[in-house]
């Protein structure tokens, strides 16, 4: 436990930042600052030392996260009638700098995830796959029948309880990690919004 903690909380290194930057897929949409990941990848030798300074200060709480923890909600059309709000899907575009820091931290945690997440949970752990569930289900049905065990495979649908907030004043509101203004048709939030952009 102690060793794991020491490993995860050790100071950031330049190599770690460089590695995280190179791992990102190319061509993704940038966040509110308009700087795509590609910029960081092209100039990795120049920007990595600066990021190291900034991230180290942020993790030490010497520098506020205000600049990087901003998102921008953009609506993407789904199939069907676009005059209906339900046919639009909101996604939050996050800034590249935030994503780099998040990836660095995620990579540190990832190494130990398999120790804390039960093997029954097949998501989010490297080396586990959703296909494992299919194989187990098929094998279980065959094995149970062959072995004379009466098996019930119960597939449960849980309502998404953790993604809604019931608004009860006694429960904690969502922590204010990410501020995400709405944006229409690609315009910056609430600035220069012309009627023709609100098609």
């Amino acid at each position, binding site marked *: 436990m102690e060793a794991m903690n020491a490993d995860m909380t050790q100071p950031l290194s330049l190599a770690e930042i460089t590695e995280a930057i190179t791992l990102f897929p190319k061509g993704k949409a940038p966040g509110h600052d308009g700087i795509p990941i590609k910029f960081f990848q092209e100039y990795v030798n120049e920007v990595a030392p600066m990021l190291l300074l900034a991230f180290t200060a942020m993790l030490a709480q010497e520098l506020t996260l205000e600049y990087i923890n901003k998102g921008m909600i953009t609506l993407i059309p789904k199939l069907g009638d676009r005059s209906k709000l339900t046919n639009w899907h909101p996604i939050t575009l996050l800034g590249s700098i935030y994503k780099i820091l998040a990836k660095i931290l995620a990579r540190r945690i990832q190494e130990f995830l398999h120790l804390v*997440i*039960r093997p*029954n*949970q*097949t*998501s*989010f752990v490297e080396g586990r796959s*959703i296909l*494992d*569930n299919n194989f*187990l*289900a098929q094998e*279980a*049905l065959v*094995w*149970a*029948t062959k*072995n*004379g*065990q*009466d*098996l*019930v*495979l*119960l*597939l*449960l*649908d*849980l*309502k*998404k*309880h*953790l993604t809604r907030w*019931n608004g009860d004043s006694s429960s904690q509101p969502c922590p204010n990690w990410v501020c995400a203004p709405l944006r229409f048709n690609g315009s910056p939030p609430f600035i220069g919004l012309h009627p023709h952009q609100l098609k």
Partner: protein
Amino acid sequence: MFILATHVLGHMLDDPKHEIEGLHLPKGGCVRDQTFVDDTALYLKGSPSNLSKVQAVFELFCLASEAKVNWGKSAAIWASKEKKEWEWGQEVGLKWILEGQGV
């Protein structure tokens, strides 16, 4: 968040005090649940009393986590040499898929 919640659920199902019988594996051991994020599949011994114990665990879990089981959208698959000679879950709208009816 889902991982944390289903982690607790898994331990509740495996807790010996609830006496839930899962699927006995060829090499020993017993599997009761498998999840992908919040999609949960339970491997259970097919008897009404066992299923009722599971339901009781879920009632407790839902009370604590504010989750709700959508029984109408859940399904149960029966796998056995024998025919199923009892009913369970029809009052909550659980759909049964019996062998030979296509899975």
